């Protein structure tokens, strides 16, 4: 069965025909060819597939695509503006807050979600919010430094 939905993806309104059993992640990667959102565990634990829906982080691997109807979906591809990186992306680069990079798009989207909700989080709030985003290279210290920098600049 297919469902016709309208959703905004990275600022552009799209009409999508999605299958009943497709997740938002499936539609982003397979139909829209937005390969920046990664599938890690596929059970909502690792955070690799984090995207923002109406500004809030969700596991796109567990969200039925049909439920994106009328929603505003933001993926890692939608962050940069006019060739300029988003401040969160730039901070990750400045602090080398990644190694292999697999978790990075999800980690960056989770940080966007955090800063949307709380522009100046303290360390405890950051750890709590990001506890569900796993980096197997262990770049947590650098990620924390990047966020501290962003919070100090109020970005």
């Amino acid at each position, binding site marked *: 069965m297919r469902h016709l939905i309208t959703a905004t993806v990275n600022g552009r309104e799209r009409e999508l025909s999605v299958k009943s059993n497709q997740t938002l992640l499936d539609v982003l990667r397979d139909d829209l060819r937005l390969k920046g959102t990664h599938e890690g565990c596929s059970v909502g*634990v690792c955070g690799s597939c984090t995207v923002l829906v109406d500004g809030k982080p969700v596991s796109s691997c567990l969200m039925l695509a049909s439920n994106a109807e009328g929603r505003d979906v933001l993926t890692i591809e939608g962050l940069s503006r006019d060739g300029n990186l988003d401040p969160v992306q730039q901070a990750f680069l400045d602090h080398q807050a990644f190694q292999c990079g697999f978790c990075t798009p999800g980690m960056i989207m989770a940080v966007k979600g955090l800063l949307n909700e709380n522009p100046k989080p303290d360390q405890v709030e950051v750890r709590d919010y990001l506890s569900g985003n796993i980096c197997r290279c262990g770049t947590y210290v650098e990620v924390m430094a990047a966020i501290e920098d962003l919070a100090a600049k109020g970005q």
Partner: protein
Amino acid sequence: MRNFDLLEPKTVDEACRMLDAGEDVRPVSGGTALLILVKQGLLRPQVLVNLKKLEGTNAITRDGAGAVRIEAMATIHEVETSPVVREHLPVLAAACHQVANIRIRHLATIGGNLAHGDHQSDPPGVLVALDAEVELSGTRGTRAMKVTDFLLGTYETALETGEMVTAVTVPPVRGRLVGDYLKFTTGSSEERPCAGITALVRLEDDRPVEARLAVGAVAARPLLLCETDPTEGALQRMAEHAADEMDAIPDLRGSAEYKRHLVRVLGCRALAAAWKEACP
């Protein structure tokens, strides 16, 4: 993911009629629990009924008498951040904040959490401690029952075919409640609870008149113990009694013996903290 058809009702009545078609038709709301079972091949529904798009089913309100009503499609994050819940039921807000991670809390719903019947979850034990009721709608009408009677065992609830959870209601509290939810995980912080302890003391005219201890995640159903003559000694005996009573389920998170030990230690600790808050 395995193939299924997704039906999308607009009203609760329509949803119940769709769900009445039989065992191969299952409801789905946030999907964070059910879709994992489908992905793993543990559940093979032909049809899922999408309850997430039902309109006007996520309000959180408090009536004049002080009962807090949370509609079923409220997300765990909406419960945890609701000003009503934070002010009047802080223990529920605290427990919901500890469910999984922020991404799951934005998707998962309180109704789905109860209907799923997973014993290894944070909210059910707290709702049992708060004496909450669940409201059900079905093709044969509506009914309400205590959460403690609704939860029958692991993945087992009192839901009948053609029925769905529409709300959970916490009755007005006589006097005031103090205490907290204590979650213990043997894995990472966002893991499912190995034990979830709710310890509450109810005060009337600033005098402690009742203590409640609810233990979730340890056995197939939450255990609730109440003490109407609370003293420090009685509270200690409550935790010991709970540990002895529990039919603890051994799993990757710990043996039955280990979990009973946790109930004794954490039960004592949580009740002592609640008592200290009640009688500073």
